[in-house]
């Protein structure tokens, strides 16, 4: 147990929080490991932001325990966490460079190294020419990039991003995705909180899905997807399908057909039958439900 705490970037166990007798977060537990992008997902109002705020010690849980980097939350931990809140904002009257230096120094960066770090990051997002502009002179997307830089300026071990792509154009969004990917390579832990399942499918290694404050899915993304596989095959072809052993039923869709398999049959057995019949196959795919579909299915069960 002690060992587990030491290797985890963070562990949240049995945490609950209610506001005005409304249970917003209900007995949530999860662990974060180094070098992973962790998706905290769920619809709006599911309790994602409240969970994050509890991790950041902005609000305190009614019950449960939270350990960050092996310790319960303390002021020193704040220097090792980068947090991009959902509600965005910066001092509008200050220049880019002044804000970055001030907020970086509040994260405990030494005065001597802060300037070079600021230049390095501004170069990374190609905003060095704007360093002396005031925030109010920047576009919304640019301001958001600056805020992202604030989040990672102190090279934190744990980066918490609440809806980081909201409001970004595709170019900046992909820039951000690259940087997040690099953080994973550097063995950092990234929490990505979002209600957009496609971003999660693209980036995340493991996920926690919450709905109405409760944990509904938790684990490796690939495992979850295979667990919710409907045991069907998507097929696009030319010709006439023969009678196939092991196929329970066939659903005709607009551009493809979906073959539902009987228990105990695997997709490769079906493929072998199809190829034997000399049918021209354009696409043969083991149907994996999207996270969206899984979510709708899971949320419907509750």
């Amino acid at each position, binding site marked *: 147990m002690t060992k587990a705490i030491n290797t985890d970037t963070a562990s949240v166990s049995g945490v609950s929080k209610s506001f005005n007798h409304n249970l917003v977060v209900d007995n949530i537990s999860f662990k974060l490991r180094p070098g992973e992008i962790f998706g905290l997902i769920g619809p709006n109002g599911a309790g994602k932001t409240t969970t994050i*705020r509890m991790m*950041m010690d*902005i*609000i*305190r849980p009614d019950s449960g325990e939270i350990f960050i980097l092996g310790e319960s939350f303390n*002021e020193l931990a*704040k*220097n090792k*966490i980068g*947090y991009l*809140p959902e*509600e*965005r*904002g*910066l*001092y*509008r009257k*200050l220049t880019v460079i002044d804000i970055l230096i*001030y*907020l970086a*120094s*509040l*994260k*405990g960066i030494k*005065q001597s190294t802060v300037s070079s770090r600021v230049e390095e990051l501004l170069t990374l997002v190609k905003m060095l020419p704007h360093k002396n502009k005031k925030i109010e002179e920047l576009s919304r997307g640019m301001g958001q990039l600056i*805020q992202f830089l*604030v989040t990672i300026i102190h090279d934190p071990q744990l980066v918490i991003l609440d809806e980081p792509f909201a409001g970004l154009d595709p170019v900046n969004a992909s820039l951000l995705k690259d940087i997040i990917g690099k953080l994973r390579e550097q063995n950092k832990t990234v929490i990505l909180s979002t209600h957009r399942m496609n971003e999660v499918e693209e980036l995340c290694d493991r996920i926690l899905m919450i709905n109405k404050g409760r944990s509904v899915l938790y684990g490796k993304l690939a495992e979850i997807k295979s667990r919710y596989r409907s045991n069907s095959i998507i097929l696009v072809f030319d010709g006439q399908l023969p009678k196939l052993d092991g196929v329970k039923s066939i659903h005709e869709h607009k551009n493809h057909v979906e073959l539902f398999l009987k228990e105990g049959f695997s997709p490769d057995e079906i493929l072998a039958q199809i190829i034997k019949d000399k049918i021209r196959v354009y696409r043969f795919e083991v149907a994996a439900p999207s996270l969206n579909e899984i979510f709708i299915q899971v949320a419907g069960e509750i």
Partner: protein
Amino acid sequence: MNKTLLIIKHEFLILIRRKGFIIMTLVFPLLALTAIGIHQIVQGTGDTRPTEKITIGYVDKTNLFNVNTPYTQYELIEYVTEEEANKALVDEAVDEYVIIPVDYINAGVIERYTQKKELEPSPGISWVVKDFLLNNLLEGLDNQEVQLRVKYPLSFNTVILDEAGNITDAESGFSAFILPAIFGFLLIMAIGSASGYLLQGLGEEKENRIMEILLSSVSTRQLLVGKVIGLGTGGLLQIVLWLISAVFIIRLASNTIGGMFNQIQIPENFILIGIVYFILGYLFFAVLEAGIGAISPTTKESQQMTVALILPAILPFYIFIFFLRDNADHIIGTIFTLIPVTAPMMVFIRLGISEIPIWELLLSIFFLVIGILGGVWLAAKLFRVYLLMYGKAPKMGEIIRMLKQS
């Protein structure tokens, strides 16, 4: 560097670079200079401070007034007849003239002729005419000292005695009240301007949503203390600049209205006690205002709520008027000295009018410090709970429940 120090430095630098702050800092000295300028212009057009000598003609019908001592700013010219004096006035040889009638010794009436439309002569002119008459009336008196006493009969030197009849070093009257009044005024100003900047800053950080970033870097206590001290230092700097410019301006004005400032004698320990209470008082009110800033959703609402704080701060002035003016050692003075909200102002006033026992001062400072620490604790709690709740003012019951929960 310590995070609190970083916030202090940041808030201080941001404040002193604000246009509004710079303008406020400059406006007071400039206004004072302008006021003195206007004062001098107005006085220059009057008779009290003439640039040229004022000439006054006189016709002496009693033949008793022969001594004509010279004055620096006035000249008295004798004319034999009223017609001559009248002609001199029309020709502008004299500015005005007076006639000493035959029955002056009995009636004491002087006739004054002038082209100016005014109800009574200016103080300068009446003094010079009076002095001229006195010089002549006292001419027969040999004793020079008695002559001088008749002209300047008295100057009060008031000594305040305590209950046992011993001399106390308390000041009385104007000079006793002016310093407490200045300190009190400065404290109210400091509270007002600091609360303005504090609430504006908090409001901005709430509206900009930067608060969450700040709180993910520092603790609420660091943020609160940093803000209060950073802005307070800025406010103190402003007041020091005002005081320095006030010294220069008073020196500049000492010929005109500065006379009264020369009378001010600073009681021993006043400056020390004054500064201690000024700083403690500022800190106490600032942390309470930060708490108000935390629970009110908009800057406007929080500023309305701070009025409720300023009122008790100035309450001691009324206590003075109703209770202490006639009885400086009234028990109510002690009570309000010990209550943190009223302590600074009450102490300023009482320092001016009587002695404050040392135990009262120590106890009052102790309560004030407890009040500040309690205020920091309370405001930090309120910060935690309410700063992230945008656009919703809490009810009193909710505040109490939230405090219990956290």
